[in-house]
């Protein structure tokens, strides 16, 4: 396999709160190759966003990366200087949020914002920057970009605003884009347009994508590989199609079974019993144990990650697909 662009090993990001230590990211490891689309899925609170923020060096007090390694193009980001991280952010690594207004400034015209973003990392004249801004809008499918440059964010629809945010993320041809639920607030037809365009851009420029979502169906239609998070850990990962067709971890199985589908009409949906554990009171051993129908005494020990097929592994002592002998 090609040298990974991003390589995360045993990452731990904790929040020191009054009520106790929240281990939001609790030993996460994965790789992303150049041009690859990685889907990161899991229930609310499982640590998806905090994983993304950790890569960008955006963890704020009371949060802290307490262990592990994040290597980007061979360079260690954990413990890197703030100035270095700022240099990488926006230029080599970009992030797209669920709410585009996290990227856009409501009181500035679109042209001002894009030109500023260009000049932050490049030494070019204003006229050149303005031309680049127009091209950037055209590339994400905004009609009559020349005119739209003079508009304010409130004059755009939600889908258009998200495109502007994407245009800004793409300005410097980043090598990695982290998308945190970028289409969740958008309508189906607009979501389809944006997914379509993002994928084309990745193919053209060899950009790698981490696509964070709780929507497995979106990941299935988009991602090359899939990581499933539960309680701060990746409990299963592998090629998206293989994992969805034949999940190895009981939690992944449960997630897939609980999605209403063509075949579920009129029948009851299977449901995962109970709810996600509080991050302050994780059960001993496998954190999924209280909700798992396969649990037994062996699960009282924390399961380690085991191989379960080509490029696949799962953190379960009783995986649902045959394990690969070590």
């Amino acid at each position, binding site marked *: 396999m090609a040298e990974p662009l991003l390589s995360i090993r045993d990452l731990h990001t904790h929040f020191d709160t009054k009520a106790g230590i929240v281990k939001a990211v609790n030993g996460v490891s994965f790789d992303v190759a150049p041009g690859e689309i990685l889907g990161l899925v899991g229930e609310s609170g499982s640590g998806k966003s905090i994983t993304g923020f950790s890569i960008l060096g955006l963890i704020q007090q009371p949060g802290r990366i307490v262990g592990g390694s994040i290597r980007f193009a061979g360079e260690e980001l954990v413990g890197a200087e703030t100035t270095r991280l700022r240099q990488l952010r926006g230029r080599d690594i970009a992030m797209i949020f669920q709410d585009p*207004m996290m990227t856009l400034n409501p009181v500035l015209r679109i042209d001002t914002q894009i030109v500023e973003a260009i000049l932050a990392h490049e030494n070019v004249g204003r006229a050149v920057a303005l031309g680049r801004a127009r091209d950037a809008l055209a590339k994400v499918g905004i009609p009559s970009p020349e005119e739209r440059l003079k508009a304010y964010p*409130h004059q755009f629809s939600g889908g258009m*605003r998200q495109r502007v945010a994407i245009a800004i993320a793409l300005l410097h041809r980043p090598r990695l884009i982290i998308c945190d639920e970028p289409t969740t607030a958008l309508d*189906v037809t*607009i979501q389809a347009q944006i997914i379509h365009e993002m994928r084309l851009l990745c193919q053209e420029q060899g950009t790698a994508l981490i696509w964070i979502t709780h929507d497995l169906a979106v990941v*299935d239609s988009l991602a090359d590989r899939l990581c499933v998070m539960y309680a701060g850990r990746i409990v299963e990962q592998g090629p998206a*199609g293989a994992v969805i067709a034949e999940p190895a971890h009981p939690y992944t199985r449960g997630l897939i079974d609980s999605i209403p589908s063509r075949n*579920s009409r009129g029948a009851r*949906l299977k449901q995962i019993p109970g709810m996600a554990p509080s991050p302050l009171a994780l059960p001993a051993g496998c954190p999924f144990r209280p909700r798992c129908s396969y649990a037994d005494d062996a699960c009282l020990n924390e399961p380690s990650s085991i191989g379960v097929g080509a490029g696949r592994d799962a953190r379960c002592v009783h995986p649902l697909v045959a394990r690969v002998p070590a």
Partner: protein
Amino acid sequence: MTAAMHARSTADVTPIVEVRAISKRFTRKPDLAERIAGALGARVDLRTVHAVDDVDLAILPGEVVGLVGESGCGKSTLGRMIAGILPKSGGEFFHEGVESAAWTPLQRHAAVLAVQMIFQDPMSSLNPRKKVRDIIGEAAVVHGMTSRAAQGDYVADLMRKVGLDPAYMRRYPHQFSGGQRQRIGIARALAVKPRFLVCDEAVAALDVSIQAQVLNLFMDLRQEFNLTYLFISHDLGVVEHLSDRVAIMYLGRIVEMAPTEALYAAPNHPYTKALLEEVPRIGAGKRTFAPVRGEIPSPVAPPPGCHFHPRCPFAMDRCKTVRPVLRAIGSGRWSACHLNDAT
């Protein structure tokens, strides 16, 4: 013949709720970015929105009708008018065959209680300062479904029905998880013995695993209380799972209506086709989208003729000027598209 009349004559049952040519006009609410811009002195253009524009819909007892469409197309507005919590700007509203202008005080009271609404965000629709016991039981005491003395037992019974432990009766909403709060909202709606629930994005805010629990609960309650539902959602998978019949809305109008299986198997309206093609489905694997072009137009200045024409691959000259009416195109099937005119 209108769609609503058709549903009446063929089924030969009085619809529990029926609306004819119902409309709602608003002066548009500014969104967040517009409010900020307005506060900073920018001119923000706010004109009248036809949130619901001449809609006919009849819902029969025991039916589950799904209402689908993109954000801002008027689903919630129609749902709230049907639930009787939002006054209409025009058209007629029938409960059990009697138009609202002709209701006696008793009929008005019955109509109000018979239809209850369940909202997307359980937290903002539950009073944070009240105990669950009062949230669920108060309206039932006021309307005489139970007495103050028997309220505890009444609430405990409802809590069990929706899968909540009655021991938690004295807790406040913030002490529950999202899925549990949605159950509190459902128990509160059931407390006044409604016949009809309008569920507005009732599972949208929930994680998939919790969503399955709440969807199963809706199915169980339907059986147990012979409930009728209007199920509003932008999630086509959820609607397919639950509904007997589906209505598709686009910019204030119903553009297609059909039995669920027929609609998903062979959609008629170009907008429905586009929607169904673009829903990502689990198990379908990686695929290339060929998305519909263009943005959803502003409801302030909807395109003339067929609202969908700027995005429709089949648009003809007529579509730009003449509004297509919702016409019968088969058994129980209705569509508002000029492509059906030729026949």
